[in-house]
C-alpha cells in the first residue's frame, strides 16, 4: 500500500457516476423479490420530461355538461369557479395545468329540492337541513364548520347540528367542545364487522350508557354515563344553544336523564319506545353549556344531540375516519329512514374517496356498486333531499422523487362521476375546484400551507378554502335562473307522531 502518493478522488466520483449511468440502462419496471425497483435517472433534472410518464397521468375526468340539454345546461348560469371570461366548459388540454372549472355537471335537476328549500328559507325562514357525510377530511368540522357558517350567515339559523355522544375528533373540534365519561359502550359502522344488538344511527354509531343498578329514585346517582357539551366560540351562530334535541332508542319507561344547563338541573324521563325517539330541550335562555347524565335501568341506545334553531340552515357533520363511504350501508335502512323522518333533510352530501383511492388501482367498479346502494338508500330514506356527491380531493403520490397527483385519482374521480350520473344525483368536482392536477402539492407547499404533509389531508385553512369553493358552487346553483322556484316546494309534512309521544 502506497500511502505517500495523494489519492485522486476524481476517479472515485467518475466511477460512481459511471456505475450509476450503467444502472440507468436497467429495464424500467424491474422487480426484485416483489419489490418494484425505481429507475435511476441521474440526469432527470436536465432531461426533457419523459412523454410516457406524462401520458400515464390522465387528465381529470371531463368537465362537460352531462345532464340532458333540456335542463338548461346549454345556458349555464353563474359559473363561480370559472376564470373570468371563460367559455363553455371544455376538456383541458392534456398536460396543461388545470384551470378552475365550472361546475362539473349542470346539476339540474340534481339540486332542485335543495335550491327550492333554500329559497323558501330565504323567503319565510323555514328550515333547510343538510347532512354532510364524509371521512377524516371533514373531521373536527373542518370544511363543514366554515360551510355551515357561510350558509347561516346568508340564510339565518344557528347551532352546530347533530353531534354524536362520542367522537375521536372531539378534542380538536372547535365548533363544539365535548367531553364524555369513558364508560359508554360504542358500536359503529367501521370497526364493528357484525351488527350489534342496537341499530346504528345516522352517524354510523350507537352508544349505550352504563346500566345503573343501585338506582335511587329521589336523586340520580353520580356515577352515571354522561356527556357534556360546551358551545364553540369560533362562529357567532354557534356560541349559544338555542334548542337541543336528544335522539335515543327504545328502553325501560323508568329511564331518566339529568340535564344540567348552565348550572340548572332538570330531570327528564325517557319514555320513548320507538326505534327512534326524541327529547327536545329548550333552555329558558340560550345556554353555553349542557350536561346530560343518563340513568337507564336496562340497555338504552343513545345516538346524539342536535343543537339547532327552529329556522334557517342546519348542517350536520357526519365524519367518520377511515370510512370509504361504503360502510354507510351498515346503518339499517329502517333506522336511516326514521332519522330521515325526524330530521327532514333537503340536501345530502357524500364526500369520500381518500380512503378508497389506492395507488396502482385502476378499477373501482366495486366502489361504484357499493356506493350505488348507498345513494339508493339515501334517496329512499330522505325522499325530500337532493343528493350531492363531492368528488375526491387531489392526493399526491411520489414519482421520480416528486409529489404529483396520484395516477389513481382521475380513475376514482371518473368512477364517482359515473356514479352520480347513473343515479341522477349532483356531482361537484372538488379536484378541479382545488386547481386540478398537482394542486395538493401546491396546497401543502404554499405558505401558509392549506394541507398536511401526508399530501392527502387538508388543515383548517384548507378547510376554509374548500368550504368557500363549495359555497360558491352551491350559490351558483341557487342563483341559477331556471332552478325550481320556492313556490314549487311541496308542503311540509305534519310532524311525525312519535315525536309528540316522546315530549
Amino acid at each position: 500500500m502506497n500511502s505517500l502518493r495523494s489519492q485522486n478522488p476524481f476517479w472515485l466520483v467518475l466511477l460512481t457516476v459511471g456505475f450509476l449511468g450503467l444502472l440507468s440502462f436497467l429495464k424500467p419496471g424491474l422487480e426484485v423479490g416483489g419489490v418494484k425497483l425505481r429507475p435511476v435517472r441521474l440526469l432527470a433534472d436536465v432531461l426533457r420530461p419523459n412523454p410516457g410518464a406524462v401520458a400515464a397521468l390522465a387528465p381529470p375526468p371531463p368537465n362537460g355538461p352531462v345532464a340532458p340539454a333540456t335542463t338548461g345546461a346549454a345556458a349555464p348560469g353563474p359559473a363561480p369557479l370559472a376564470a373570468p371570461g371563460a367559455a363553455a366548459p371544455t376538456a383541458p388540454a392534456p398536460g396543461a395545468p388545470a384551470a378552475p372549472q365550472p361546475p362539473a355537471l349542470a346539476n339540474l335537476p340534481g339540486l332542485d329540492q335543495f335550491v327550492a328549500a333554500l329559497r323558501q328559507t330565504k323567503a319565510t325562514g323555514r328550515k333547510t337541513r343538510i347532512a354532510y357525510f364524509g371521512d377524516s377530511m371533514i373531521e373536527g368540522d373542518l370544511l363543514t364548520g366554515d360551510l355551515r357558517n357561510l350558509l347561516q350567515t346568508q340564510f339565518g339559523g344557528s347551532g352546530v347540528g347533530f353531534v354524536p355522544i362520542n367522537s375521536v375528533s372531539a378534542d380538536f373540534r372547535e365548533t363544539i367542545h365535548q367531553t364524555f365519561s369513558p364508560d359508554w359502550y360504542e358500536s359503529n359502522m367501521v370497526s364493528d364487522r357484525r351488527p350489534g344488538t342496537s341499530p346504528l344511527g345516522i352517524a354510523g354509531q350507537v352508544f349505550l350508557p352504563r346500566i345503573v343498578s343501585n338506582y335511587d329514585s329521589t336523586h340520580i346517582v353520580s356515577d352515571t354515563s354522561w356527556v357534556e357539551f360546551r358551545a364553540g366560540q369560533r362562529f357567532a351562530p354557534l356560541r349559544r344553544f338555542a334548542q337541543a334535541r336528544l335522539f335515543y332508542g327504545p328502553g325501560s319507561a323508568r329511564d331518566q336523564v339529568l340535564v344540567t344547563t348552565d348550572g340548572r338541573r332538570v330531570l327528564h324521563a325517557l319514555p320513548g319506545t320507538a326505534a327512534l325517539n326524541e327529547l327536545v330541550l329548550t333552555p329558558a335562555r340560550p345556554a353555553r353549556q349542557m350536561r346530560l347524565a343518563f340513568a337507564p335501568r336496562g340497555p338504552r341506545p343513545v345516538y346524539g344531540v342536535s343543537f339547532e334553531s327552529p329556522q334557517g340552515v342546519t348542517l350536520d357533520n357526519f365524519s367518520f375516519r377511515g370510512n370509504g363511504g361504503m360502510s354507510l350501508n351498515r346503518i339499517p335502512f329502517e333506522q336511516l329512514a326514521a332519522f330521515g323522518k325526524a330530521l327532514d333533510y333537503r340536501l345530502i352530501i357524500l364526500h369520500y374517496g381518500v380512503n378508497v383511492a389506492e395507488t396502482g388501482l385502476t378499477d373501482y367498479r366495486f366502489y361504484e356498486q357499493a356506493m350505488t346502494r348507498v345513494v339508493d338508500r339515501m334517496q329512499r330514506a330522505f325522499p325530500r333531499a337532493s343528493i350531492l356527491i363531492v368528488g375526491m380531493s387531489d392526493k399526491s403520490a411520489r414519482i421520480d422523487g416528486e409529489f404529483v397527483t396520484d395516477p389513481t385519482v382521475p380513475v376514482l374521480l371518473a368512477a364517482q362521476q359515473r356514479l352520480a350520473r347513473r343515479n341522477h344525483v349532483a356531482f361537484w368536482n372538488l379536484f378541479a375546484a382545488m386547481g386540478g392536477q398537482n394542486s395538493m402539492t401546491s396546497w401543502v407547499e404554499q405558505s401558509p400551507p392549506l394541507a398536511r404533509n401526508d399530501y392527502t389531508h387538508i388543515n383548517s385553512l384548507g378547510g376554509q378554502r374548500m368550504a368557500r369553493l363549495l359555497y360558491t358552487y352551491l350559490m351558483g346553483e341557487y342563483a341559477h335562473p331556471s332552478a325550481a322556484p320556492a313556490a314549487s316546494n311541496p308542503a311540509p309534512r305534519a310532524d311525525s307522531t312519535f315525536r309528540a309521544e316522546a315530549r
Partner: protein
Amino acid sequence: MDFRNLRPDNLGLDVNRLVDQFRYHPKSPLIFNTGFFLLLFLAFLGGYQLLRDRHRARLLYVTAFSLFFYYKSSGIYFLLLVFSTIVEYNFARWIADSGSPGRRKLLLTLSLLVNLGMLFYFKYTNFFLSGYQALTGQPVPVLHVLLPVGISFYTFQTLSYTIDVYRGQIKALRNIWDFAFFVTFFPQLVAGPIVRASDFIPQIAKKPFISREDMGRAVLLIAAGLFKKAVISDYISLNYVERIFGNPTLFSGIENLLGVYGYALQIYCDFSGYSDIAIGIALLLGYRLPPNFLSPYQSTSITEFWRRWHISLSSWLRDYLYIPLGGNRKGMVRQYVNLFLTMLLGGLWHGASLTFVAWGALHGAALAADKLFQKVFRPGDNWLTKLLGWFITFHFACFCWIFFRAGSFEVALQVIHQITHSLRPDLLGQVLGAFRPVFALVALGYLLHFIPDGLTLRLETALARRSVVEQALLLTVVIWLVIQIKSAEIQPFIYFQF
C-alpha cells in the same frame, strides 16, 4: 448499445433546463444528496485536480465554486457573504495591527456589532417585533425578511476568527483570498460543522494531501451520511414523524410517543448525516474538518450528551460565550447561571421562536442540575448507574425535542397530552405492523447508532485498503438506495383509534 444514438437530442437533453439548473431557485437549493450536485462535483473535481499544484489558482477556483454554491442556495444574498468576508478580513487586520488595547476593543466591538447585527436583522427581526407587539399591544408591521441560508453558521465562523485574532490565538491573514477561501468553503458553508479559524486556516497554506486512510474515511463518511440523511431521516420524516407533529391530536399517545422517538432519530440522522457528508467532501479536497457528532444518544448524562451532540456548536458556545461570561470561575451559582444563559442563547441560535428558547432553557437547566447532582451525590460508575443515566438522558433529550420540533407550544403540549392522557399501548402492535418500513428503518438507525467507535475505525481502515473501484461501488449502492427511497410510495395514512 448503439452509440450513434447518443446524440444530445436523442438523449433528450434539454439545454434550457440544463442552463436553468445553474440559476437560483428558492425551492431547490444545491444540496449534497441531489443528482445535479454529484455531476457538478465531478466536473469541479476535474478542475480541482488540474490545479493541484497551483496554489493561488486552486484557492480562487474553490472560492468561485463556493460562491456559486451559495448563490444556488440564497440567490443575491451571496453578496452578503462577500460583504462579511471583506469586513471581517479588515477588522481582524486592524485589530492585529493596533497597539492600543482600547482601540482593539473598539474594533472588536464594531466587528461583533456588524456580525451579530446582520444575524439579528435577518433572523430575529420579526421575532423581536412580534415580541414587542405582544408586550405592548401596539401593532407592528411584519417585515418580509428572507433568511439567507447558513447565515448562523458562517457568522459564527467569522466571529471565531476575529475573536481569536483579538485574543492573539491566531495571526491575522494577510491575503484576503485566503480568508475568503476559509469563509466560503462550500462543504460546511450552509449547515456546518462550524469550523474554527484556528482549525482551518493553518491548512490553507499547505498543499492538500489525501492519504489512502483519508479516502477510506471520506467514502465511509459520505456513504453513511447519505444513508442517514437521505434514507433514514427523509423516509421516516415524510412517512411518519411529520404527520404526527402536523396534528398530534389525530393520533393516539403511543403513536405520538413513537413519533417523538422517530423524531429524535430523524434530527440526528438529518443533521449528523449532512455534517458527515460535508466532512467527507472536505476530506476528498484534502481538508480536515472536526467531527460534529459522536453517537450522542450513547451518552449517560446530559453533560456528556453536549460533548457528543453538535460538537462544533457546543464547543463554540463554550469558548466564545460561556467562558467569557465567567464560566466556572465565579462560583457555583454563577456557573449555573452561565450554563443556563449559554444554552438559552444556544436555543435561540437554532431558530427565532420561543419553542427553541424553551428547548435551550430545558437543556441549560438540566446541565446545571447535572453538575449539582454529580457534585452532591457523586454516583458510582457501575453498569446500573450507567444504564439509568442513559435511560434518563435519552428520554430527557427526546422530551426536549418535542419543543424543538413542534413549532408552537400548543402543538408541543398536544403531543405531551396525547402521550400522558391517551397512550393506548394496546395499539402498539397495529401501529408497528402498519408502518413496518418506517419502524424497520428506525430500528436500524438506532442499531447503527450504538455501533462502538472501534468498529467504525476498523471499517474505515478496511475501506482504505480497498481499490477505488470498490469504494465507488459502495457509494453507488448507497446512492441507488437513496434513489429507491426518494421515489418510494408514500405510506398511506392509517388510524388506530379503534
